[in-house]
């Protein structure tokens, strides 16, 4: 058993590969978004925000799904491993960032295209609720000191969120239908992109997914390190006590 601390970090060959790929594709997307693709016939230049908005939104939802699934697995396996819980937490941390970015970029896009920063349409409103739910979930995770209890508590919250979000969405849909809005005002929906624009969008989704995976891998390992440090600290303290006891009993004999 290698008990030495070689200082080897959370990076592995896999993460280095993913990281390089993510950087390369993101660079391409950025270049394409600003220079290679034309302005949209309908939206004008504001379509260039789409290339960053859609991928962030996609990752935010992906992260939420991953958190939900790993939370369920975490509850099912809680006597054996905390691994699933760490992934759930890491995914939520990354997800909340991407969700915040999705909301901000969407808002800026909306301002450019429709003239308003915000619309009370079902999708945006539900996304906002999802964001707040994430924040609450992370707040709870932050406070719990015992990893087992934290895993249990946050897993329950994550699964309740899976219940809550469709309820919220449905009631907001009903609510807004009272106001008989045209559902035209949809930032992601019916914009027709083709050719290089569509390819760039797709590349953006790929790039940001890779970024997501990279971040989750590292943060999940980081959580493992943090938990291990507590244990290591305890082990060292116990070893020190034993050494102390051995030396005093040896001296006394």
């Amino acid at each position, binding site marked *: 058993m*290698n*008990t030495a*601390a070689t200082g080897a970090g959370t990076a592995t060959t896999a993460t280095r590969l993913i990281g390089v790929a993510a950087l390369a594709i993101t660079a391409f997307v950025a270049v394409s978004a600003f220079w290679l693709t034309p302005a949209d016939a309908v939206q*004008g230049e*504001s379509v260039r925000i789409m290339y960053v908005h859609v991928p962030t939104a996609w990752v935010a939802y992906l992260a939420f799904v991953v958190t939900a699934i790993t939370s369920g697995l975490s509850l099912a396996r809680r006597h054996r491993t905390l691994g699933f819980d760490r992934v759930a937490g890491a995914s939520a941390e*990354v997800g909340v960032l991407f969700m915040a970015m999705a909301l901000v970029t969407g808002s800026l896009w909306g301002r450019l295209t429709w003239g308003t920063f915000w619309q009370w349409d079902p999708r945006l409103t539900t996304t906002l609720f999802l964001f707040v739910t994430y924040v609450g979930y992370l707040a709870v995770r932050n406070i719990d000191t015992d990893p087992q209890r934290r895993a249990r508590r946050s897993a329950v919250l994550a699964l309740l969120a899976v219940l809550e979000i469709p309820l919220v969405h449905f009631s907001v849909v009903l609510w807004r239908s009272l106001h008989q809005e045209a559902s035209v005002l949809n930032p992601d929906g019916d914009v027709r992109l083709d050719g290089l624009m569509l390819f760039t969008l797709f590349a953006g989704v790929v790039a940001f997914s890779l970024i997501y995976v990279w971040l989750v891998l590292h943060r999940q390992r*980081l959580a493992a390190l943090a938990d291990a440090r507590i*244990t290591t600290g305890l082990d060292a303290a116990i070893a020190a006590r034993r050494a102390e006891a051995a030396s005093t009993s040896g001296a006394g004999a």
Partner: protein
Amino acid sequence: MDDIGFILTSWLLTLGSVAALAFATIRRAKRLASQVPDSAKPWI
């Protein structure tokens, strides 16, 4: 003129915050990794 400002903000904010999170993660990971034995790192 508004346009380009918003577009740039969107991109810089997004990429910037992602980069910030990445750097913070790596920095903290390096610090913790030096305090923890390799046996606790199953990914290595």
